[in-house]
């Protein structure tokens, strides 16, 4: 699954650790999310969307 996490984080000048703290996950999880190696659960996806005040589909794209 593709996502815009890295871009959204960079726009806000946040580090991976900043984002990890805001979402209450580890930095490794943020890295895996950004590189598309891990797909978040629905609750985490909602949490991410709320943090960036965007819709889930504005952040994540269901790429084949």
């Amino acid at each position, binding site marked *: 699954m593709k996502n815009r996490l890295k871009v959204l984080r960079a726009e*806000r000048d946040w580090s991976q*650790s900043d984002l990890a*703290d*805001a979402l209450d996950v580890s930095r*490794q999880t943020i*890295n895996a999310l950004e590189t598309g190696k*891990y797909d978040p*659960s629905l609750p985490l996806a909602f949490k991410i969307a709320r943090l960036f*005040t965007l819709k889930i589909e504005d952040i994540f794209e269901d790429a084949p």
Partner: protein
Amino acid sequence: MKNLNELPPAFPEKRSEKSKKKKALWLTAILGYGALMLGMGAVAFYLGYEDGREQRSINESHSPYVIVAVVLTFMIAVFAWSVRYWRNIDEMAKRAHLDAFFWGGGMIGWAILGAFLTPMLIFPDLEWGVIEQIGGTTTHSFGMGAFTALTVTTLGYGVFWLVWWAKKR
């Protein structure tokens, strides 16, 4: 256009709090394990010394009861620590454990065990002298088998867990 300056508050404070919690959790594990090993060493030394001094055989010794008590205490401590550990890790870390449990502990472990168990079940006259030699009685051989099963599944679990994390990095 969204206001990009709307940062969620207090990132560094939250990080330091989380980091302290994480450190305390691992410090408890390391110190607890160290204390247990030292304690077990001291108790084993004392029991061995006493058994030797009194010239007691293993059947007369109190050592097996002490070992059982220590193992039970260790199990309770590990369980209590695991509850805290599980509550402190995030969803990806939990996913790693669940995948490792299914594929590493379950599938790989059982596949390896199957390679040994199947011949035992198919060939009724098969006797592996080594097992009986090490195990001694049927009870001890059974215990050894159960311990082997646990070791193999734990190894499968550990290897799969490590590979899982390496691939996500």
